């Protein structure tokens, strides 16, 4: 098992290497000059050259890449060009913020979607199924940022009972933190519920047509047991991959929602850095996000056999 994990982890390295080169190459292609942004109103050729020197941007791109890569090896992600903040601790801080938004949304989605999908499959072709499918398809079709705007309009302007922006850390004030999270989490959760419900329904339907379910029923096991002992575990396994994909992409920050609600999470950190051409921040954060995504997916791969006895690790 451990050996298998080691191999899998090692296989991530070439992907990460390609990602790092891709990111580095791509962002240097963006027109616009960090030194110019840093100087803003007060610039002249001499000041620009001085700042470029200070930022180490006068070297060739390849030289900059290898210097960045070698420092990465020793855990040094560099520092922000704009704020001089060290990149790695900054990522950590932003990631904690993103977690506080994404995890509640994710858990809520899982706890609503799995039973809903199962119910739809069990009551297939009845009104329950149709209702769940229609609601799920509908939620899938409402863009989260539009939902966010509607929520802000409803609960921030029309009937102002909830904060529409800002972030309070859970550790500092739980009640306020929850109040601040309600709108962004709501805006996020619909689409996730929709995706998961549809997947769960589809795989549950497939499982219910398998021979062993028919056998189980023939043996006279109660319907409850059929659903929870046989259908659910077998249908959950295929959903797991999708759950992993969703969590992985959510953890990369939800740039749009974070921007709308003014949450200092990873997504906004990257978008701000892209607009400011803050190269070390973009590189470091994107690489971190990709690594998280790959790790979460690896984890779901590893968990898969625990839920699906048919699959064995080889």
């Amino acid at each position, binding site marked *: 098992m451990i050996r298998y994990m080691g191999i899998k982890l090692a296989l991530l390295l*070439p*992907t990460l290497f*390609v*990602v790092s080169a*891709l*990111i580095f190459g*791509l*962002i240097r*292609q*963006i*027109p*616009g000059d960090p030194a110019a942004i840093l100087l803003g109103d007060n610039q002249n050729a001499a000041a620009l050259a001085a700042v470029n020197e200070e930022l180490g941007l006068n070297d060739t791109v390849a030289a900059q890449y290898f210097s960045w890569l070698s420092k990465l090896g020793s855990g040094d992600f560099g520092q922000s060009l704009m704020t001089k903040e060290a990149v790695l601790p900054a990522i950590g801080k932003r990631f904690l913020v993103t977690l506080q938004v994404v995890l509640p949304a994710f858990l809520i989605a899982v706890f609503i979607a799995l039973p809903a999908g199962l119910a739809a499959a069990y009551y297939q072709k009845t009104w329950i199924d149709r209702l769940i499918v*229609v609601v799920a*398809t*509908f939620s*899938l*079709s*409402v*863009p989260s*940022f*539009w939902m966010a*705007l*509607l929520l*802000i*309009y409803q609960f921030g*302007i029309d009937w102002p009972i909830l904060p529409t922006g800002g972030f309070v850390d859970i550790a500092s004030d739980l009640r306020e933190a929850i109040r601040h999270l309600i709108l962004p989490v709501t805006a996020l959760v619909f689409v996730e519920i929709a995706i998961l419900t549809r997947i769960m329904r589809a795989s549950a*339907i*497939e499982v219910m*047509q398998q021979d062993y379910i028919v056998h189980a029923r023939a043996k006279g096991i109660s319907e409850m047991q059929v659903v929870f002992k046989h259908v659910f575990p077998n249908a959950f396994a295929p959903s797991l991959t999708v759950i992993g994909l969703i969590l992985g*992409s959510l953890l*990369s*920050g939800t*740039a*749009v929602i974070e*921007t*709308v609600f003014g949450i200092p999470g990873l*997504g906004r950190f*990257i*978008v701000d850095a*892209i*607009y400011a051409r803050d190269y070390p921040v973009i590189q470091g954060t*994107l690489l971190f*996000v*990709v690594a998280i*995504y*790959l790790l979460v997916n690896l984890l779901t791969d590893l968990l898969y056999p625990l839920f699906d006895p048919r699959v064995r690790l080889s």
Partner: protein
Amino acid sequence: MKYRAIAGLSKGAQSSLVLLSIVALSALVAHVYLPYDPLALNIEHRLQGPSLEHLFGTDFFGRDMFSRMLVGAGVSLRVSFFSVVFATLLGTLVGACAGYYGGWTDRLFMICVDAVLAMPGILLALVLMLIIGAGEAGVVLALGLAYAPTVARTVRGTVLSIREKEFVEAASVMGMSSRYALLRHIVPNTFGPLTVLCSSLFAQALLSESALSFLGLGIPPPYPSWGGMLADGRQFISQAPWLCLIPGAAISLTLLSINTLGDALRDKLDPRTRRRMQ
């Protein structure tokens, strides 16, 4: 035959088809007739609510929202469509090569595909937009490049599963070149899964175009896209909510139709579901 195919669809899918046709039709109508010039500024009539004169009201620049929605339908559909076409062409090429040649070609291609897939799509598209430049072509290229890996994976998977099958082997035994075998058998066989994937990519493209506008880069004005109109309208939300409501509702309804049709398509084309139906 055609009629029966449509009649065989569920009511939901039928109404989706009608809705999508209306959207497509309004995009076409916009080329022939518009109640107002969608670009003409009119200071006296800015931020007017919906009325008989201006069905969907006017925006901050006094431009007629109804005319802009009509034109925007064309822009949004065109951009989403060509993004998907570009992604499909590129993805199929990469996926088919990787799947057919196997070995190092496959491994190398797949590492690159995985690398792109692991990057957050919207941020990748944002970076690409900044490089290519905002505009219809920019959005198409950026979204196309961001989606191509998904297509490549699907095509590769299908190719791998078909490659071993007898009819391809039979073809090479019969002395046909490998390229011909690839074209003759593999590409048509990926058609089913690809159609399903494309419908979901089309929905994603429509969504991403709005998200890009939201982050400040999308289709540049003065030509309107729905996403751009939604993004521009949000600052007037408390005073002129229709500026957000109308484009948002249009996007949502279109997405709903595409998703419903996509489901119907899957039921028809996915062999596993077909088996279930029997």
